[in-house]
C-alpha cells in the first residue's frame, strides 16, 4: 500500500485562486488505489474546483499535483467524470444508451459505420461494454428511452454508467446525490460503493451531506475556510478538527442510528464558486 505507484492523486501544499480570492491553500492529499474518498465542506469553499484541478481544467496557484502518475489532464482517458448535477433537456431526443456510449468513444473522430457490429470485433466489444455498464447500474429497463424523459435518479445512474464505460481507474463524482430523493440517495451511494469495491476503481466524491455514504468511506478530505483536513471520517468529522478548520466552535453529534450532525457550522460567504465556475 505504501509504494508510490499506488498513489492515484497526490496534492502537496496545493492552493487555488479564482480571480483575486484564494479558495483554499496548504492542502495535502494522497488518495491511494481502490479507496473511496469523500470531499466535504461548506458551499462555495471550492470542492468542485478541486475536481477541476485534478482534471487539469484549472491550474494550481501554488504547490504540486500528480494524478495517476502524470500531470493533471494528461491521464484523463483513465478518469471517469460526473460533473455537478446536470439534468438533460426534457426535449432531448437521445436514448440513455447513446449517452452511455459517448463515455466509451465519444471523443474519437470519425463516425462508426452503421451495422459495424456484424463485421467489426471492436464495434461488438463496444456494444457489449455499454450493455455491461448499464447492467452494472441496473439501468437496463429504461436505457432505451429518451434520456430527457427519465427521472433524476435514472439519469444519474446512466451518467455513472457513462463515466464507467471506458473502464477508468479513477472516478470523480461531483455531488452525485444532490437533488435525489432519500431512497435514491442511499441506492446510488450503495451502487458507487459496490463499483469501488468490485471494479477496483478509486472514487473521489464531492458531497454536501456525508451521511448517505458514511458507512462506505475509507477517508474524507474536509475543506473549510481555515484549510483542509484529511483522514478517516472518525478522525476528521470531530468537534475539535472542525473547530480548527472553521475557526469557530463546532460540535459534532451522533444520532442513535449513527448519523452525524454538525452543529454551529457557519455558512461560507455566498460566492457559490463551485456552481458558477468561469
Amino acid at each position: 500500500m505504501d509504494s508510490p505507484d499506488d498513489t492515484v492523486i497526490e496534492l502537496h501544499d496545493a492552493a487555488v485562486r479564482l480571480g483575486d480570492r484564494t479558495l483554499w491553500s496548504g492542502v495535502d492529499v494522497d488518495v491511494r488505489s481502490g479507496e473511496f474518498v469523500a470531499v466535504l465542506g461548506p458551499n462555495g469553499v471550492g470542492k468542485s474546483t478541486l475536481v477541476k484541478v485534478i482534471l487539469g481544467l484549472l491550474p494550481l496557484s501554488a504547490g504540486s499535483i500528480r494524478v495517476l502518475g502524470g500531470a493533471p489532464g494528461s491521464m484523463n482517458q483513465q478518469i471517469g467524470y460526473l460533473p455537478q448535477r446536470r439534468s438533460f433537456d426534457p426535449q432531448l431526443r437521445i436514448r440513455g444508451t447513446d449517452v452511455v456510449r459517448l463515455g466509451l468513444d465519444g471523443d474519437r473522430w470519425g463516425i462508426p459505420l452503421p451495422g459495424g457490429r456484424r463485421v467489426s470485433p471492436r464495434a461488438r466489444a463496444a456494444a457489449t461494454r455499454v450493455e455491461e455498464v448499464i447492467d452494472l447500474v441496473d439501468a437496463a429497463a429504461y436505457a432505451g428511452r429518451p434520456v430527457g424523459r427519465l427521472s433524476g435518479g435514472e439519469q444519474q445512474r446512466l451518467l455513472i454508467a457513462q463515466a464507467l464505460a471506458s473502464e477508468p481507474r479513477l472516478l470523480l463524482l461531483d455531488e452525485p446525490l444532490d437533488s435525489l430523493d432519500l431512497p435514491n440517495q442511499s441506492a446510488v451511494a450503495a451502487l458507487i460503493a459496490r463499483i469501488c469495491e468490485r471494479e477496483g476503481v478509486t472514487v473521489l466524491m464531492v458531497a454536501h451531506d456525508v451521511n448517505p455514504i458514511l458507512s462506505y468511506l475509507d477517508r474524507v478530505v474536509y475543506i473549510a475556510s481555515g484549510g483542509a483536513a484529511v483522514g478517516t471520517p472518525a478522525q476528521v468529522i470531530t468537534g475539535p478538527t472542525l473547530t480548527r478548520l472553521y475557526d469557530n466552535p463546532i460540535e459534532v453529534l451522533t444520532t442513535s442510528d449513527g448519523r452525524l450532525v454538525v452543529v454551529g457550522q457557519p455558512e461560507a460567504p455566498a460566492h457559490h464558486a463551485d456552481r458558477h465556475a468561469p
Partner: protein
Amino acid sequence: MTHVMSVASAGSLQPQPSWNLLEDVRQAFMYPFMVNAFRAGAIVAVLAGLIGWFMVLRRQTFAGHTLAIVGYPGAAGAVLVGISATYGLFAFASIAALVIGLVPNTGGRGYSEESAVTGTVQAFALACGFLFVTLYGGFLSGANALLFGSFLGITSDQVIALLLVALAAAAVLAVIARPLLFASIDPDVARARGVPVRGLSIGFLVLLGVAAAEVSQITGTLLVFALLVVPAATAQTWTTRPVLSVLLTVLIGVSVTWISLLVAYYSPYPIGFFLTTFAFAAYLISVGWRRLHTEERRAPLSVRA
C-alpha cells in the same frame, strides 16, 4: 375585367398537370432546367438535413436563421460589386459564423450571450442588405428570389458547385460528428475527456453558415428554416436513435423538396411557399400523431392512479 384576363393568360403559360403522377413527373423531367432543379434540390436537402439535425439537437436554430439571413446582404453586396451572388452568400455566412462563434461568452454555457450577439448580427445583416439594394439603385433584379427562393435557371455548373461544397461540408461533418454529438449533449464531460468543445462549436457554426448559404440558393434566405429545421425536428419526434434519426431527416428533406419542385412546376406560385407548407405539414402530422399515441399509452396509468 383586365384582372381576370391576366390571370387567365398566366394560366395558359403554366404547364398543366394531367393528374397522372407518372406522366406529370416524366413531363417535368423533360426540361433540363427542371432536372437541374431536382438535382440541386436533392443536394441541398441532404446537406441541410445532416447539418440541421445537429443544429436542432444543439438548440441553435436562431444562429441558423441568422446565418441564412446574412446571405441576403452577402448576395446583394456581391451583385453590387459585380461578382457572383454565390461568393457573397458563402463569404458573408462564414464571416458571420466566426463572429457569432468567436465572441467570448462568459459564464456557464453562455446561451444568452450567444443569442444577444446572434440577434445583433441578424439585425445588422438585414440593414446592410437593404443598404446594398438601395446603393445598387432602384430595383435589384432577383432581390425577391434572394429572399424567397427560385428554382428556375439553375445551370449544370451551379449544380456541380453545390455538389462539391456539400460533399466537402459532409466530409468535415463525418469526421467531427461523434465528438460534436458528445460536446452537444454533455459539454463538461466532453471537455474533461479532451474534446475541443469550443473549437467544435465554432467549426459547427461555420458548417451551419455553409449549409445556410447552400440552402438559401433554392429556398431564399428567409425560408432556409424549411429545410434546415423542420425535417430534423420531424425526424426527432419519430426516433431517438441518432443514425436512424439523421437518415430520416435526410429522407424527409429530399421528399419535401422534390414534391415541392413538382408542385411548383405546375403552379404559378413560388416554391418557397410549397416547401414551407409541406415541411410544416409533415411536422404537424408527426407531432400530432406522437401526442395522440402517448396520450393513449398514458391513459390507463392515470385511471389506475
